[in-house]
């Protein structure tokens, strides 16, 4: 009986392991090897750590990474601040029927591709766009205002794209929050803000952490939104990887950047978890 169980266990596990190995582990090993290769002055391929050294020596590279990481953190914070009241409204205040409707409404933008979503914003915000048209019509501005191609717009775009990934874990965390806890806090003379700080946020902490990790990784790994909405100054780290692979034909450098992104973003998340005193296992559960 026991050996039968073991056999079927391995039988079912094998495809998963195979899939993991073939599609995830192998290509990464290949990329890792690639990242340690480079040309010497003679144009021959040799083993080297220059690709990694370049990242720290060349200011543009690490500057771009720091910038990308900071903006990803800002995006995560903004998304959280926006998603909290939205999820609270959906879970605690809206009627059951409105609730489903609102959730669908949140989901709706994800039925089209990210490209379409970003172009939608561009149509709205561009100098000759819909918003400017109304501003001019109502006489609020005399000259059309360019609202695209700056960092604020880019962050707004990123927040919009990642909203859902924060709202969903928050909703499921909040659903388990007993209304009477909120009422009890209110009864004990707590203001709304105190209730938020001492009851709701601590209760939703696992949801917040998992939402924050997803949003942070999505923002960090995003390519389209910073590229299209951010405009002139917004060199994103993923764009740099793309440029290395595609424009400069420098796969070795691109692979090194890819691994640096993986390692550095994991470090940031690790620090974040330490700061919020969480373990990754708790979040996943």
């Amino acid at each position: 009986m026991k050996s039968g169980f073991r056999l079927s266990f391995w039988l079912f596990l094998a495809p998963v392991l195979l899939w993991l190995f073939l599609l995830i582990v192998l290509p990464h090993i290949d990329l890792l090897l690639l990242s340690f290769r480079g040309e010497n002055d003679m144009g021959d391929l040799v083993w080297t750590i220059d690709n990694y050294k370049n990242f720290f020596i060349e200011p543009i590279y690490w500057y771009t990474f720091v910038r990308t990481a900071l903006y990803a953190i800002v995006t995560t914070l903004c998304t959280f601040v926006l998603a909290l009241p939205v999820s609270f409204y959906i879970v605690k205040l809206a009627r059951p029927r409105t609730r489903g409707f609102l959730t669908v409404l949140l989901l709706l933008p994800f039925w089209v591709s990210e490209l379409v979503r970003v172009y939608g914003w561009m149509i709205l915000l561009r100098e000759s766009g819909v918003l400017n048209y109304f501003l001019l019509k109502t006489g609020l501005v005399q000259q059309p205002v360019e609202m695209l191609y700056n960092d604020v717009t880019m962050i707004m775009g990123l927040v919009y794209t990642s909203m859902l990934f924060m709202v969903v874990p928050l909703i499921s965390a909040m659903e388990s929050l007993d209304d009477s806890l909120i009422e009890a806090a209110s009864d004990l003379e707590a203001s709304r803000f105190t209730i938020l700080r001492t009851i709701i946020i601590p209760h939703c902490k696992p949801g917040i952490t998992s939402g924050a990790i997803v949003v942070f990784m999505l923002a960090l790994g995003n390519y389209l939104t910073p590229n299209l909405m951010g405009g002139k100054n917004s060199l994103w780290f993923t764009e740099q990887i793309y440029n290395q692979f595609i424009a400069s034909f420098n796969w070795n450098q691109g692979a090194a950047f890819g691994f640096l992104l993986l390692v550095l973003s994991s470090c940031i998340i690790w620090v974040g978890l330490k700061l919020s005193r969480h373990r990754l296992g708790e979040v996943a559960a």
Partner: protein
Amino acid sequence: MKKITLLTAACCFFMATAVQAETLKILTWKGYAPQVLIEKFEKDTGIKVEATYSNNEEMIAKLRATRGAGFDLAQPSQDRISSVQEKYKIYQPVDYGKIDAKLFIPSMLDAVKANTKVGGNSYAVPFCWGTSGLIVNSDKAAEADDWNALLDPQYKGRISYRLKRPTLIAMGYALGYDPFALYSDAKGYKEMLDKVAEEMIRTKPLVKNYWANGDALLESMRSGEVFVAMAWDNGGWKLHDENKAIDFKAPEKGALGWIDTFAIPAKAKNVDAAYKWINFMMAPENAAYFTSQEKVPTASLGANAHVSAEVRANFDRSFPKETIDNIKWYPPVPAKLEIMEGKILDKIKAAK
């Protein structure tokens, strides 16, 4: 018993997929394989055509990743073939015996042969050509007639260009260098790039955005958000059809001329079909259809007679004899330059 049935069914399925109509997989630019021509070709030959749209850099990256497999035909620009071929060996030599030479303008065929020569073999035949220059809205920027317009403070916030290597070269010309002459002098080229970067960073506030998508640029020109842009000639002609004030202008220092080619990937499965397609596309009436549609002239001899009058008018307006003679054709790019250019482009983009 049941197993055998299943097995037979599976075999039949695989056989069916195998004998299913021949296919030709083309890796090309958007618009280079018009639907009408694809249908005509399929009807003539029974070969199914699958086109994948891309650009120079991605074409090379895709073929490099598979070491030249997955496609039967690619259409890179002629200047991006020799160095890539030397390094990654992603193409196979063209068998010029299978090409109908009568269909080509002889001078272009010879030039492409010479430019794509690696170790005694040539790797491409010409398909079409065009130039990069300025698209100018003459109502708002009548004086813009050279690359310097892209650095001119009077068009603040109304300038747009791509952040790609052609722009670096155009800026080199604007600053008085001869970039193509510097191709062989890496040090001199680096100096030029540094100067170009400095200038482009300094004038960054003048630029509205770095465009990435051709249609999006045309929309910005159309709506009057952009007055001067660096772009391809056919885009300017498309806009000219709608608004006479907007037109393509070859810069005084010379438009940058490119030739897009046919090249056959190293591990192409259906080489015969690829040659059939090349000869098909170069037939005068087919090439003329393509030119009328996309406003891009081809290397097809005698296609001109079949091209629509408006398209010819565009061409005559923008390219009088001396302008054509002044076109700066891209020579093959030496391998080292591209890494250098990549760094410079990153630096420009990251600058405040």
